[in-house]
C-alpha cells in the first residue's frame, strides 16, 4: 500500500532528509508516513516553515511502499540495502540510498545489506 513521506535537502550540506513529527531525520524508514492526504498536506506546510528557519531547501512529498525481503533482492538489487520502506520513483530511491554506481557513498553505506 502506497503511503507518503515528506523529504527535502538539508541547507548546510544538501543531504537528503525526511520529516518526522516536526523534525528532520536521515533515513526513510524513520520518516512519518501518511495515509491521509490532508494530514500530509498539513505536515508539508509545517515542513515549509523549516525553510524559513534555514533548516532545509524545497520540501515535497513522495510515495513510498513497504518492501519485503523477496522483493528486496529484485527491486533494490542496485543498492543492496536493508530498508522496510522504499520510494516508488527510482529517482527517490537514489536520493534515499545513494548513487547506484558508488555503493560505498551515500546512506547506503550505513544501510548495507551484506552480500550473502
Amino acid at each position: 500500500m502506497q503511503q507518503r513521506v515528506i523529504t527535502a535537502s538539508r541547507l548546510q550540506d544538501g543531504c537528503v532528509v525526511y520529516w518526522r513529527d516536526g523534525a528532520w531525520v536521515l533515513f526513510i524508514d524513520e520518516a512519518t508516513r501518511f495515509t491521509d492526504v490532508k494530514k500530509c498536506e498539513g505536515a508539508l506546510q509545517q515542513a515549509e516553515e523549516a525553510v524559513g528557519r534555514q533548516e532545509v531547501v524545497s520540501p515535497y512529498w513522495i510515495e513510498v511502499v513497504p518492501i519485503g525481503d523477496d522483493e528486496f533482492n529484485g527491486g533494490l538489487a542496485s543498492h543492496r540495502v536493508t530498508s522496510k520502506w522504499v520510494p516508488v520513483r527510482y529517482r527517490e530511491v537514489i536520493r534515499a540510498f545513494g548513487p547506484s554506481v558508488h555503493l560505498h557513498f551515500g546512506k547506503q553505506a550505513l544501510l548495507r545489506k551484506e552480500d550473502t
Partner: protein
Amino acid sequence: MYRYDEFDDKMVRERARQFRGQVARRLQGALSEEEFKPLRLMNGLYLQLHAYMLRVAIPYGVLSSLQLRQLAHIADKYDKGYGHFTTRQNIQYNWIKLEETPDILEDLADVEMHAIQTSGNCIRNVTADHFAGASADEIDDPRPYSELIRQWSTFHPEFSFLPRKFKIAVSGSAEDRAAIKVHDIGIGLVRDKQNNVALRIIVGGGQGRTPYIGATLHECLPVGDMLDYLEAILRVYNQWGRRDNLFKARIKILVAHLGAEEMKRRVDEEWQRIRKTSNRAVDVDASMARLRGYFTPPTWAQVSAQDSKEFQAQCQKDEAFSLWVRRNVAAHRQKGYAIATISLKTPGSIAGDATSHQMRALADLTETYAHDEIRVSHEQNLVWPHVREADLYHLWQELVGLDLASPNNGLITDMICCPGMDYCALATARSIPLAQRLGVRFQDIQRQNDIGELKIKISGCINACGHHHVGHIGILGVDRRGEEYYQISLGGHAGDDASLGQIVGPAFPSDKIVDAVETIVATYLQKRQGKERFLDTWRRLGNDVFKERLYASD
C-alpha cells in the same frame, strides 16, 4: 601557461571573500533560497540529488601539476576522494557542503583557479582543442584567443544576464577537436588569402532539446576584429533572444528563427556601429601579442637517434605498449615528441572520474615528464600535450599501474557519459551504469580495434550534457512510466563534417539496450565496405538497415 596578474589574483580572492559573506547571510537567514540561488550558481554551486555539486573551471582545459595536486587536495578534504572531468573541460565535485564552499574557493584561488563562469546565464568557461600548441596540423595556438575571450568575458557587465547560458569553443587546427559547430559560438582558426591567421565564426550551434549545427556568419574575420565581432553577436542575442521561454532562449533558436542571413545582417550592422565608436574596449592585436608570451613552446630536449631507436624497439618488444601508442599517442609538431591521451574510460569504470590518488600521481608525472602541463579534453580524457617519445614507455608503465592505460582512444569504449540520475537533479534516467555495461561488453581490445572508430555518447536527459546528438551512436535516457528507457540515434558527429544523429526508432528498456548496441555494431561489421568507419557506413546506408535489424522481432 597563462599566469595570473595582480588583477586576476585580486578578482578571484575578492570573489571568494564575497561568496563567504553570501553563504553566511544565507545560513543566517538574511538571504532566502530564491535570492541565494543565482549567487551560488554564479560560483558554480548546484544543489543535486545527494549534496551540493561544485563545478570548477579549467579554462580551455589547461592544468599545471600544482593545480592538479590542488584538485586532488580538494577531493580529499571536501569531497569523497575523487572528481569528475566534464565535457566542458571542467571538474565537478559531487559531495560538497555549502558551508565549506568559500574555503574551497580560497584553496582554488591559491593555485589561480576558480568556479566563475561555470553556471548561470553568462558566457561560460571557454573551451578549446586539447592538443593546442602541440598538434602537427595546427594553424595557430587557440589558447591565447581563448584566454583573451576569458579576460574579456569575465564579469562583462553587458553579458552577465543573458537570456540563457552561452558557450564558446575555439579550434586551432584543420581537424576540429573542440566540437565548434555545436557551440553558441564556434571559432575556427583559418588562413586568409595573404596567409594571415583569421577566424571562421560559427554561430547558433548547440545540443539540448533542440539541437542545431551552427551557421557560419563570417568565413575569414581578421583577428583584430575578434572581440568587436563577438560583442556584436552577443548584443544582437541579448536584444533579440527570447526571455519568455527557457526552452527557446538559446541563441540557436534565434538564429533558426531569423535565418543565418538575417542574423548575419543584424550582427554586421551592430559590428559596424561598434567599429565606428572611439571607445573600443580592447586592442586585440596588442593583447594577443602580450598573451602569446604566456604560451610559448617549452624548451625542447635534445633528441638523439638512439632515443628514437629505443622507442621503436620498445614498440616492437611490447605489444600492449605498441597498441597503446597506436591508439592514444598523436603526432607532435616537434621531432622526438608526442601527444599522449590518458584514458579515463577503463572499461567498467566511470567515464571522466579520477581519484585523488590518480590525480596526484599524474601531477608528479606531469611535472617530471610533461613540461608541467596536462589537459582535460571535452571527451572526458586527460592529455599530456608535450612528452618525449623516449619517455613514453615509462609513462605508459606508470599509467598501467594507475589503471589509466586503456588503449581505447576513439574506440567504442571511449564513451562520453553525463553523470545521469545517479547524481544529477535534472536527469530522467541513469547513464553511468549503462556506460559501464557497454564498457564491459565491448572490453576486448582486439574486438574494439576491429570495430574501429566509433563514438558512443550517452545523456541521462534531454539537456544532452553527454552529447548524444553528436554520437555516432547516441543514447538518450528517458523515463517511461517510472522505468528507464534508452532512445538510440545514429549518425551524429562533432567534427568538421558535423551532423546530428537521427532517432532510429522506439526506445529500448534498460535490459535490452546493450544488446541493441551489439546489433548495431554487428550490422555495421557485416555491411561495411573496405576501410569504412562506422560513420562512413551509416552515411552510405542511413538508418533503415539498422532499424530493420533492431526491430526485426517486433
